[in-house]
């Protein structure tokens, strides 16, 4: 347990002391949403995950990941998101494809869509979608991966699409798994208005972020404990330390129940606490996660995974 605590503390320590306030005008909004039920339950830390939805967190980890999953999350009565992904073995790593969607209502027909719009809603229909492909290989004991994403966002009469890229690294050191991911590289996200429409659009920067994380698993007879922690720096300098843990009970090979909890420095409209449970029946896993949002609201995510 000592090493688990150390993992969390190390991650917290590297966070800069001066944490700046975060700007909200980063787009597209779908790139700022959680993308997996299991990572979400652990503070939305997925940079060292070994599940297929790591495609959305750190492509280097696709080296380990296998299977496919789908998950959906409800933020409010008007906002929801979903993700699906699948990974298969390729050479000495993995190759993956995934997609994400989000549907929401916004108060005005304008960019950028804000996270808080998911709670407030509004008269303007909006939707995001992305198609993601990723590849990872092991090069001299280092896991190296990259992701290409095509993202489209539509809010009222505005449309935009862009190509984004993620790159990631992973490596084991001293029994810990480390991951580093730089996500959402690309040109700024400027909408194209539909002629004759009245809009108030501002070109938005991509939500570029860099995440460094670590995780550690400890196995006991019937229980497994894992802990993960990460520090994310956003484009505007906002730093998000986060971490979480998972307690797994397995009474029979292939059958497990997981309890998860996590914490994070909340970004606008987020809350600090996440939690979840999981049930694995042989190759099938069902995961549930909740995240606290601002204003004492909760969002719920449920995922289904086949390994």
């Amino acid at each position: 347990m000592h090493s688990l605590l150390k993992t969390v503390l190390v991650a917290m320590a590297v966070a800069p002391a001066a944490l700046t306030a975060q700007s909200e005008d980063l787009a597209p909004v779908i790139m700022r949403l959680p993308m997996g039920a299991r990572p979400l339950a652990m503070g939305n830390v997925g940079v060292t995950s070994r599940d297929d939805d790591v495609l959305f967190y750190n492509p280097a980890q696709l080296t380990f990941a296998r299977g496919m999953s789908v998950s959906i999350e409800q933020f409010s009565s008007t906002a929801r998101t979903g993700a699906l992904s699948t990974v298969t073995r390729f050479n000495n790593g993995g190759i993956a494809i995934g997609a994400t969607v989000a549907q929401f209502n916004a108060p005005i027909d304008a960019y950028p869509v804000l996270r808080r719009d998911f709670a407030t809603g509004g008269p303007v229909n909006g939707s995001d979608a992305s198609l993601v492909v990723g590849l990872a290989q092991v090069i001299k004991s280092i896991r190296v991966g990259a992701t290409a994403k095509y993202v489209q966002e539509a809010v009222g009469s505005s449309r935009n699409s862009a190509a984004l890229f993620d790159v990631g690294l992973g490596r084991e050191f001293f029994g810990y798994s480390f991951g580093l991911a730089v996500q959402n590289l690309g040109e700024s996200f400027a909408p194209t208005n539909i002629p004759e429409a009245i809009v108030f659009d501002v070109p938005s920067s991509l939500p570029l972020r860099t995440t460094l994380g670590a995780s550690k698993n400890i196995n006991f007879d019937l229980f497994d404990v894992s802990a993960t922690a990460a520090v994310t720096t956003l484009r505007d300098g906002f730093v998000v330390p986060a971490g979480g843990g998972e307690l797994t009970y397995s009474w029979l090979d292939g059958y497990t129940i997981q309890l998860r909890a996590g914490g994070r420095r909340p970004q606008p409209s987020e809350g600090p606490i996440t939690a979840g449970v999981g049930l694995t029946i042989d190759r099938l896993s069902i995961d549930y996660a909740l995240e606290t949002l601002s204003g004492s609201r909760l969002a719920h995510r449920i995922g289904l995974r086949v390994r």
Partner: protein
Amino acid sequence: MRRLSIFLIAMAAASCTQALKLTTDDSPTVLSHQMINAPNPGVKGTFAVKTLYYGSGTDKRRAEFRDSVTLKTKTVDASPFVSIDPPQAKAREKDWGFGTSKFPINGRVWYPDGAGPFPLILIVHGNHNPLDYSDPGYGYLGELLASRGFILVSVDENFINGGLRGESDGRAWMLLKHLEVWKKWNDSSSGPFSHKVDMHNIGLMGHSRGGEAVGIAASFNRLSHYPDDANVKFNFNFDIKSVFAIAPVDGQYRPAGVPTPIENVNYMVIHGSHDGDVSSFNGLRAFQRIKFTDGKPWFKVAWYVYRANHGQWNTVWGNKDNGPRSGRYLDLRGLLTPEQQRQFSMVTIGGFMEATLHGKSEYLPMFRDHRVIGAWLPKTMYITRFQESGFKPLATFDEDVDVTTGSVPGVTISAESLATWKENSLNLRSGAGDALNTNAVTLGWNNHIRGDDTTKIGKAASYTISLSDSLVGSLNVTPQSALYLSLAPTDAKPGPRAPARDTTKKADSTKKDSTKAKPPAKKPDAKPAKDTTPVDLSIEVVDAAGHTARIPLSHYGKPRRPLEIHILRRADEERQRFPTTFEMVLQTYVMPLADFVQVTPQLDVTHLRSMRLVFDRLVAGTVVVDDIGISARAGPFVTTAMP
């Protein structure tokens, strides 16, 4: 709601462990006799036991081999035999304080408090968590053997454990380096072992990978060069008399790409049916290939123990054969208790070492027929293979594809009324990719005559090995000789046999109504129903004058249907991993010809003409048979027999 209930019930059912399935234990009957009157070799003897450590003093992790050594040893360069990837080698060197070029000679010794000389036995563990030290786990054997007048050394090779492959030759070579040290100590004029070691009676024991290593050591011992690099010269030539393998692996090291040849040692291998690590009886392959070529009185034994696992032979390893988490998938409910399992190993190891290193021949019959030591053995079921160096093969089914010829000229094979007669290779339980490297004959019979009368029984099916005069002469067959065969019943049951054609009737085609449709031929059952009737058959011998004598096979051992094995908790995983629910282990039956003479005094076995398996004691069944032969030197093993 209903759907949810169904889902939850299905989920709960799927998450349950399969019901415990074990073959009904027949040991209360089979082990109801104690025919050997000698002291139980599994019970401590009269010597007071002393202990000490020896070592190279370089071990960072093992204080006993660094600070507590009574005898200091030099390190050895094992790098030609143990290769480790550079990053791992570096990490290991940091952890242990030495690399492969400076392996320590570390051992813990139990020895008798007496003048000696005492036979020397080395035991070496196998692969396990390197930091969960394996060598102390044989302390119970050390206490036993030392009290009975043996020196036992538990060799430390923990530093070779962990994620290494193909290092079994290194494990073996280390044992021989230990013997070199012992020779020096015995030859020296002072020290605790000065002239106290009987270097002419050396035994090696090994567990798991160590079980393979002891066979390799016995092989290397007589070689002048390392087979994989002739620049490495050997000069061992120790008097290794006995080799005992506990649940060994086999074939992880193949000198010059072939299975390790082992010759001219007494060899015994034991294996548990519920071994969750080495889950097939790999040691049977070593048993099969051991050769006795120098005319000396050697023997070999393979002993299969129902409900024993891999780890309980070692008190450190315990019952979870694949580490602490393996209880999640290994079914541990049917296992023998650790005490029972170790009682078995003490009896068999004690008896084997007493017989082979102390020359106590009174223990020899227990290896020919384990039923003679029913009071010593823990109550479970055993299957034993046995062969001594006098064995002359008549039919081992390995030579050719002609089912009518035997293994030597002068043998002719015939069969009568058999439903199944075929020769094929035997596999271990793990499947066709894990061949036992031996062939056997499968014989199936059904004495029922097909038809409406279900009580109609035909002449008993039979399988005959006929011997020529010249062959019998060369085999020097006497009443003191014994017949051998190894056999295992299977669950297959052929359908009733076709009635014999009445050749006295004239064929009359005119009476045939060609317009009538022929009734469809009844197909034999694709999958015969499982039969639990006890299997037995008769062994009949015939002399040149036609005198016959017939004895039930069950007189010489229990012919038992396959013992059911379920190692894993999940039935689906068990099916996926293992093609069968049993290991095909044949029981060896050794049948003194004197017994047949007792049945038919006129029988002249010096003019033996044939040996016949007569399937007259069970209406239908199938058996697998191998290693039919005869021996003129089985005498010491048949002095004690079942009543």
